[in-house]
């Protein structure tokens, strides 16, 4: 079957554009389903492309991080060998997932932790809310976690009267602005310093009134704001970057120390982790602790990595709960072609090199997992029909930088092929349309006079162009312009120009 590589039609009944309105608050709010919200990708992308500020913020950020990453990866002589090992470890993990999960559970339990299993978001949220309520807490501190964002934990806790305070600076900015994150690693990448200052002044009660937009001052305001919460919090919630099956050790990789605060000071720690985040042995950490920081922030190592195994008497939380989350992961696992998306260690390198992401930003993807990896993961996790596999130029840059060698372009092509077969347009129909177009073309080209007359038709289009661009053609041209703009045709055809030139001579 041939694969349609273009952009499909916009979804029926798509919601309003998710792009930020002028001003600091996004107007996005917190969507019902963090994996699938907002307008269709083509509509959202179109709106995003008109937002000059967003594109400037993104362009600066992604180019900075690309340069840093290339430099620190370049200084590792065995980088390709590390990628090969990382990829193979993840393949091994998925092949042995049941045994490794049971091994992890055994080792966490043996060290005083409690393991819970959650089939979906509702079940995971229920488990966490019950644990928090049992501690009598109405506020919890959180360290940024993709898994808890994916299940909408903060909103679920809010419904139970529990306030979840995000403590990562970028995540705090997003939370205060009632916004959605737009990048896996740098959730507020779409905001510049002035916007952030305005958000703090508007929404952070104890922000200094004379706060400037100097990043250092903004960070110190956040430090001051959060310190009281850290020192008094009874319960913390985290995600996990890695869980080691053979020791029961969990690892969180971070920069600011907010992770250490959450993982160390409260009495109770609840960690929510996707079932694919396992690695088999403690020594395997040597692979991923080299691959992850360089791929994500472009640093040789992130400032802080915390590792804990169950409960350590007298040091840190004395109660530890681990929630193992499925929420669609077993669906992804069942798909042999797309299974390797579960190798993802959420470094976000693929976002930073993606020409599509750089221009439309994370919100256009309508999911907590944006960018190339999100274009695979999101439709696989939800199992819904999606236009995200088309949100790519298939240039292959994402595969080049992926530290665990996920072949994102090939998976996207496979998913597109499935979308086409799902969409009802049969290959026979496409074939008929193609043949008709070719017949018309050969009719026009078979005769010089016909060809000259046909060549003048585009000039008529100048009537419907604005500022040199045609946004919408009448049917059947609308099929083309739905996902792209046309440049205005020239005033004169080549034929006419040639004729005029010959006349003048």
């Amino acid at each position, binding site marked *: 079957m041939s694969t349609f590589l273009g952009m499909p039609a916009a979804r029926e009944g798509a919601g309003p554009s998710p792009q930020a309105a002028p001003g600091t608050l996004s107007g996005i709010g917190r969507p019902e389903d963090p994996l699938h919200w907002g307008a269709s990708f083509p509509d959202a992308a179109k709106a995003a492309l008109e937002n000059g500020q967003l594109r400037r913020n993104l362009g*600066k*950020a992604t180019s*900075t*991080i690309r340069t840093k990453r290339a430099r620190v990866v370049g200084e590792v002589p*065995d980088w390709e*060998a590390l990628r090969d*090992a990382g990829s*193979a470890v993840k393949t*091994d993990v998925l*092949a*042995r*997932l*049941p045994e490794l*999960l049971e091994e992890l559970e055994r080792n966490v339990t043996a060290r005083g932790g409690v393991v819970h*299993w959650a*089939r979906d978001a509702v079940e995971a949220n229920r488990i966490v809310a019950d644990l928090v309520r049992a501690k009598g807490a109405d506020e919890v501190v959180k360290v940024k976690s993709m898994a808890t964002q994916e299940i909408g934990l903060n909103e679920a806790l809010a419904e139970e009267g529990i306030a979840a305070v995000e403590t*990562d*600076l970028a995540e705090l900015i997003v939370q205060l602005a009632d916004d959605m994150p737009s990048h896996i690693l*740098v959730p507020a990448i779409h905001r*510049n310093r002035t916007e952030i200052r305005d958000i703090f002044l508007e929404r952070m009660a104890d922000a200094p009134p004379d706060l400037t937009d100097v*990043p*250092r*001052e903004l*960070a*110190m305001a956040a*430090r*001051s704001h*959060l*310190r009281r919460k850290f020192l008094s919090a009874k319960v913390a919630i985290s995600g996990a970057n890695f869980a080691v099956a053979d020791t029961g050790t969990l690892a969180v990789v971070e*920069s*600011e*120390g907010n992770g250490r*605060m959450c993982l*160390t*000071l409260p009495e109770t720690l609840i960690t929510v982790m996707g*079932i694919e985040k396992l690695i088999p042995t*403690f*020594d395997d*950490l*040597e*692979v991923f*602790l*080299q691959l992850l*920081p360089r791929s994500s922030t472009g*640093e*040789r*190592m*992130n*400032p*802080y*990595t*915390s*590792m804990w*195994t169950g409960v*350590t008497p*007298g*040091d*840190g939380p004395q109660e530890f709960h681990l929630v193992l989350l499925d929420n669609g992961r*077993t669906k992804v*696992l069942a798909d042999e072609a797309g299974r390797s998306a579960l190798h993802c260690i959420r470094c976000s390198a693929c976002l930073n090199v993606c020409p599509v992401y750089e221009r439309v930003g994370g919100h256009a993807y309508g999911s907590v997992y944006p960018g190339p990896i999100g274009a695979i993961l999101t439709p696989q996790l939800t199992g819904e029909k999606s236009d995200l596999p088309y949100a790519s130029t298939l240039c292959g840059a994402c595969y080049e930088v992926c530290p665990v060698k996920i072949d994102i372009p090939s998976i996207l092509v496979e998913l597109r092929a499935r979308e086409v077969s799902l969409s009802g347009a049969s290959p026979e129909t496409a074939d008929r349309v193609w043949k008709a177009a070719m017949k018309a073309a050969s009719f026009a080209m078979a005769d010089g006079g016909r060809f000259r007359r046909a060549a003048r038709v585009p000039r008529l289009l100048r009537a419907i162009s604005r500022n040199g661009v045609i946004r919408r053609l009448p049917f059947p041209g609308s099929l083309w312009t739905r996902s792209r703009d046309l440049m205005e045709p020239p005033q004169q055809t080549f034929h006419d120009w040639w004729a005029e030139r010959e006349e003048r001579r």
Partner: protein
Amino acid sequence: MTDARTEILSRIRTALGSDAPGPTAAGVVPREYRSAGEHAPGSDVVLALLVDRLEDYKAHVHQVPAADLPGLLADLLGRSAKSQVIGSSDYRSPDVLPTTRESATQESAGRGAVVVPAGLDPAWLSAADVDVHTDSRDAPMSAAELDQVDAVVTAARVAAAETGTIVLDGEPDQGRRAISLVPDVHVCMVRTDQVMQTVPEAVRLLGAEPARPLTWISGPSATSDIELERVEGVHGPRTLHVVLVS
């Protein structure tokens, strides 16, 4: 109705096409990457590499023979006590924001306070003019008490030079995780023979006691969340002194 655990494990087995419980085949992992560096732990090349990486992260590095340690600590701790805003909820200390308001008034706060883990050699702090608090798992200080302390002095378990990383594993000379987290200045002493070249060497050494709580530190607390501009010092210690002791 099946419980979640049974159902998830069964879903996984179905997805993998191995419906029956039981071990599946382990995959082969190629390990062609470097498992050790070409330089010996503590060698001059490795130490120079660690210093370079740490300074790149804006950590302060000092190299002294063991005999000079008390003098250096007295100097570092005396300096930090004068420059920090003691016990304030407003964390704009003068060395972070030189132009802010409270720097003048807090300058004369007097003797500084330092926390040390119970297993640290007390002789090291003998020359320092500071109030020394001792913390242990049996007699822990509260988070609020730690917040009143200016600095912390600890030992370390191992360092990885290539990434500029120091690891603490909670043993008595390194202490509970909270003490190296809440105070604003961390003075961390690393013996030169503890400095490995690569991350795999450090991981394998730590793997002997993997259940200990581990804190990997690569420079002071930092954020790059605002326009990717790196700012040192958010929630953890904003100043990191690493003392390489030979």
